[in-house]
C-alpha cells in the first residue's frame, strides 16, 4: 500500500513538473528546415533562392556539356563516346537533339518561378530590392518561354502556380497550347515591361539588366519576324489553329519591334555596350579574347556565369590541342572544313582554300598558315589553325610527309618517328604531335581545333581546376546583326550595311559593304561566321527554314564543297577536313614546304537528311497523355 502511494506521488510530480516545459521541448523550430515565410524574410535568403533560379536557366547549348555543340557538321566529333554512333541523327523524325535537349518541357521550373513571384509579394524586404528581384524572376521566366518557343512553337503559357484540389477532375489545370504568335508576343511584352523595371547597369553581366531585357526582346521579335516571313517556304510545317505558324502579315511589325529594341541598346539607353576591341593589334586574338575576358568586357549583355571553385566546366579539357595539354585529353570537337572555308577573304569575296592551282597541281606554301592568309580575323579567333598556337604553344598539325613521287609516308601515332623515309639519313617525324590521324580519336581529325570558348588560363585544361569561361547568351554583336537583319527586311539595306560593317570592321574588313551587297545570303552568312560554335546557327537554320535544303540527304562531293560558298542554302550534309602535308624531297626547292588536301573521314558514311517535322520538337506521349488539350506537332 505504501508502495502505491509512492508511485502515485511520483506520477503526480512528473505530471506537474513536465506539463509546461513539454511544449518548449517538443515544439522547437527545426534548425535544418526553413519555412517559406522565413525564407522570404531575409534579403540574402531571397537572393539565394533567386540564384538557384538563375542556375537553372535553360539553353540547348551548354559549356558544361560539349556534346551539345556537336551536330550539323560545323564540327566533326572525334571522340569515342555515345555520339560516334549518333552522327546524322537528324535523319529521322523525331530528332531530340543531343541528350534530348530539344525536348525540354520543364514546367517545374516555370512553377517554381511562379511560386517565387507569388511569395515575394508579402516579403518584408525593402521595396526597391523586391521590385528588382521580381523583375529578374519574370525575366528568367520569359527567357525560358522564349527557348521553348524556339523549339516547340506555341506552348501553354502558365503564369501562376497551379494547385490540384483533389476533386478527381484535373481538367481545370490543363492549359492548351498558345499560338506561336502569342508566345512571342508574350515574351516581347514582358521584355517591354521589364526594361523599365530592371536596372540599366552594363556591369551586371550574369544578372538581368535593362540591356538583357532589350536583347531578349530584339531576339524574340526578329525570330518571330523571320518565322512569319520564311514559314511560307514550308507550308506543311504548320498547324491549323496557329500553334505553329505566324501570319505573314505580322512580319513587318515584328521586324520593327526588333529594330527599335536593338536601336535602344545601340543608342546607349541601357548603358554603354560596345564591341570588344581591347587588342586592335591582333584581331584574331581579340576575337578569341571576347569569350574568355570577363574583366569589364563591354560586349557581354547577359551571360550564364561560371566561377572557379563554384561552378566550372570542362570545355577546355575536352577540346584543347592534345600536344602538351594539361590532361591526356582534348580535340573532341574539331571544326569542319565546311565552316572554315566559309570565312570570307578580306576583299569581301568567298573562295575555297586554295589547295590546287588552275591546272590541278598542288600549291606549295612556305608556311602552314599562308593558306589562310587574308581571311576574316574571326577564322583564327574561332578555330585553331595549323601553324597557330594555343597557350603560347604552337600546335603541330600535319598528316604526313609527301615524297617526290607523290607517295605519302604517315604514321598512326601522334608525333611518330620513322627511320625508313627514302632519302633521309636520320629518323624523320612523319605526323604531327597534334595529329591528324584519321584512325584515332581526340586529335585534329579535320586538321583543326576549336578555339572559341577555350580558356587560356593555366589549369583550365586540368580536371581538378577546369574553366570559368562563361557562356554568353546575348552580346552586342548580336544586337548589331539583329538591327542589320531587321533593317534589311524592312527595306533599308543601307542601314543594314551600316550595322553589319561595324561587326565586320572588328573582324579586319577594310572595304565596307554597301546597300547593294546586302542580301538574304549575306545576313545568314554573317550570323553563321560571327556566332559559329555558339549555337545561334542551329536556331537560324530553323527560323529561316533552310535546314531541309542544306541537309538534303545527298553526299557532299569535293566540287560541291568548293562551290557556292556563302550561299545560305549551300549543301552541308557531311563534315570535310583539310590536311596539311610536308614535302620531303631534299633535292627539290619545295623541300620543307606545305601542301593541303581535302579529306572526308572514312567514318562519315551517311549524309544528313533533315526531316520537315524536325523544324519543331516532338511533344512526348507522356506530356500529351497528361494533358489531352495539347495539340500534336505536324508529322506527329
Amino acid at each position, binding site marked *: 500500500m505504501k508502495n502505491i502511494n509512492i508511485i502515485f506521488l511520483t506520477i503526480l510530480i512528473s505530471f506537474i513538473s513536465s506539463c509546461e516545459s513539454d511544449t518548449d521541448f517538443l515544439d522547437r523550430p527545426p534548425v535544418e528546415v526553413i519555412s517559406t515565410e522565413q525564407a522570404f524574410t531575409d534579403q540574402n535568403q531571397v537572393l539565394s533562392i533567386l540564384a538557384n533560379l538563375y542556375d537553372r536557366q535553360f539553353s540547348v547549348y551548354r559549356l558544361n556539356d560539349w556534346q551539345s555543340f556537336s551536330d550539323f557538321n560545323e564540327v566533326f566529333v572525334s571522340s569515342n563516346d555515345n555520339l560516334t554512333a549518333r552522327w546524322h541523327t537528324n535523319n*529521322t*523524325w523525331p530528332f531530340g537533339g543531343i541528350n534530348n535537349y530539344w525536348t525540354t518541357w520543364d514546367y517545374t521550373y516555370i512553377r517554381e518561378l511562379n511560386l517565387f513571384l507569388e511569395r515575394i509579394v508579402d516579403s518584408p524586404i525593402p521595396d526597391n530590392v523586391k521590385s528588382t528581384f521580381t523583375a529578374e524572376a519574370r525575366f528568367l521566366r520569359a527567357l525560358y518561354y522564349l527557348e521553348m518557343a524556339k523549339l516547340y512553337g506555341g506552348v501553354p503559357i502558365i503564369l501562376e502556380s497551379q494547385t490540384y484540389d483533389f476533386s478527381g477532375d484535373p481538367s481545370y489545370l490543363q492549359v492548351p497550347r498558345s499560338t506561336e504568335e502569342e508566345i512571342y508576343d508574350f515574351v516581347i511584352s514582358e521584355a517591354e515591361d521589364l526594361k523599365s523595371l530592371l536596372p540599366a547597369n552594363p556591369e551586371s553581366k550574369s544578372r538581368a539588366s535593362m540591356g538583357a531585357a532589350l536583347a531578349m526582346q530584339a531576339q524574340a521579335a526578329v525570330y518571330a519576324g523571320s518565322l512569319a516571313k520564311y514559314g511560307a517556304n514550308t507550308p506543311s510545317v504548320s*498547324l*491549323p*489553329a496557329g500553334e505553329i505558324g505566324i501570319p505573314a502579315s505580322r512580319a513587318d511589325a515584328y521586324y520593327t519591334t526588333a529594330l527599335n529594341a536593338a536601336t535602344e541598346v545601340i543608342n546607349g539607353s541601357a548603358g554603354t555596350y560596345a564591341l570588344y576591341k581591347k587588342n586592335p593589334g591582333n584581331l584574331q586574338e581579340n576575337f578569341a579574347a571576347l569569350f574568355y575576358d570577363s574583366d569589364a568586357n563591354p560586349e557581354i549583355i547577359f551571360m550564364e556565369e561560371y566561377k572557379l571553385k563554384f561552378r566550372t566546366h570542362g570545355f577546355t579539357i575536352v577540346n584543347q590541342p592534345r600536344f602538351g595539354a594539361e590532361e591526356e585529353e582534348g580535340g573532341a570537337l574539331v571544326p569542319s572544313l565546311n565552316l572554315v572555308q566559309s570565312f570570307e577573304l578580306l576583299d569581301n569575296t568567298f573562295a575555297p582554300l586554295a589547295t590546287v592551282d588552275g591546272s590541278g597541281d598542288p600549291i606549295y606554301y612556305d608556311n602552314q598558315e599562308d593558306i589562310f592568309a587574308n581571311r576574316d580575323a574571326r577564322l583564327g579567333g574561332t578555330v585553331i589553325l595549323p601553324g597557330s598556337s594555343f597557350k603560347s604553344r604552337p600546335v603541330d598539325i600535319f598528316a604526313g610527309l609527301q615524297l617526290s613521287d607523290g607517295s605519302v609516308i604517315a604514321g598512326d601515332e601522334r608525333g611518330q618517328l620513322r627511320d625508313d623515309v627514302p632519302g633521309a639519313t636520320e629518323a624523320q617525324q612523319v605526323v604531327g604531335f597534334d595529329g591528324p590521324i584519321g584512325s584515332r580519336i581526340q586529335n585534329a581529325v579535320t586538321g583543326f581545333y576549336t578555339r572559341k570558348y577555350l580558356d587560356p588560363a593555366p589549369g583550365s585544361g586540368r580536371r581538378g581546376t577546369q574553366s570559368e569561361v562563361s557562356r554568353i547568351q546575348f552580346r552586342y554583336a548580336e544586337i548589331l546583326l539583329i538591327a542589320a537583319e531587321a533593317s534589311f527586311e524592312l527595306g533599308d539595306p543601307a542601314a543594314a550595311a551600316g550595322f553589319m560593317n561595324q561587326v565586320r570592321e572588328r573582324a579586319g574588313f577594310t572595304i565596307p559593304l554597301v546597300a547593294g551587297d546586302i542580301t538574304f545570303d549575306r545576313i545568314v552568312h554573317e550570323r553563321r561566321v560571327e556566332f559559329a560554335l555558339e549555337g545561334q546557327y542551329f536556331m537560324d537554320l530553323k527560323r529561316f527554314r533552310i535546314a531541309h535544303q542544306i541537309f538534303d540527304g*545527298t553526299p557532299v562531293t569535293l566540287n560541291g564543297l568548293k562551290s557556292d560558298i556563302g550561299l545560305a542554302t549551300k549543301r552541308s550534309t557531311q563534315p570535310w577536313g583539310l590536311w596539311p602535308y610536308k614535302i620531303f624531297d631534299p633535292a627539290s626547292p619545295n623541300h620543307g614546304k606545305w601542301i593541303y588536301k581535302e579529306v572526308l573521314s572514312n567514318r562519315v558514311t551517311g549524309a544528313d537528311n533533315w*526531316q520537315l517535322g524536325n523544324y519543331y520538337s516532338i511533344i512526348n506521349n507522356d506530356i500529351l497523355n497528361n494533358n489531352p488539350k495539347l495539340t*500534336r506537332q505536324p*508529322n506527329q
Partner: protein
Amino acid sequence: MKPIFQYIILFVLGTTLVSCELDNVEPPKSLLTGQIVYQGTPLHLEPNRVSFDLYQDGFGKTGALGSNFDKDGAFSHLLFDGEYKMVIPSGQGPFVSLETGGSETSPININLRGSASLNIEVVPYWVIKNASLSISSGTVSSDFALEQIAAGSDAKNIERVTLYISKTQFANSQTNVATSTIQMGDITDINAVSLSAQVPDLVPAQDYVFASVGVKIAGVDDMIFSPTEKMNL
C-alpha cells in the same frame, strides 16, 4: 542433408504447381497485317520512315503502339483481341493524309477478333508506272513514266527523281552505293524518263546489286519508290 533436400524438392514442386496457371497470361495471338495500297497496288516506301500509331482506349492513359511501314508498305502487329484505332499522322507518307479537318487525322477503326488483314487505300501524290530496270556491262538503266494522282489543292510537284543502287534489298536514300538524280526541271517528258548509274566496285565483292527508283515530292519528306529489283552483274 536429407531434410534440406526434401524441402528443396517440395519448394520447387510447389512453385511449379502454383505458378503454372496463375502467373502466365495468354500471349497475344491475333495477327493484324496490312498494306498501304493505291487502287489495290501496294505503294512502295522507304523503310523506317513512314510511321503510324495504334491506339487502344479503355486502359487509362492512351499511349500509342507505334511502328513503321516496310518498304512494300506493309505492316504487322501481334495483338490481343479488342477495339483499336489506327492513325497515320498527317505529314507522314507520300500520300494525301487521311485528314478530315482540324489537326486530327481520321482514325481507322479496327475491331480485332482473331487475325485480320487490312488494306489502307490512299491517294499518293504521284506514282511510278511501267518501271523497268535493266543492267548491261555494269550500268544500271531504268525507264519509267510518272503520273500525278492527287489533284486540286492536294496536288504537289516533283522535286527530283533518283535511281538508287544498293548492295542490299534496301535501295533507298539511306543505304546505297551509287545514285543518279534528275531534277524535275530537267525532265522533258514525264511519260518517258530514264536514268542510269554505274555500279561502283563493291567491297566485299558480290555479283549482284539491287536497284530502285525514288520520287521526291516537294514539301514532303517521304519518297515513293518503284519495286526493288535484284540484278546479276
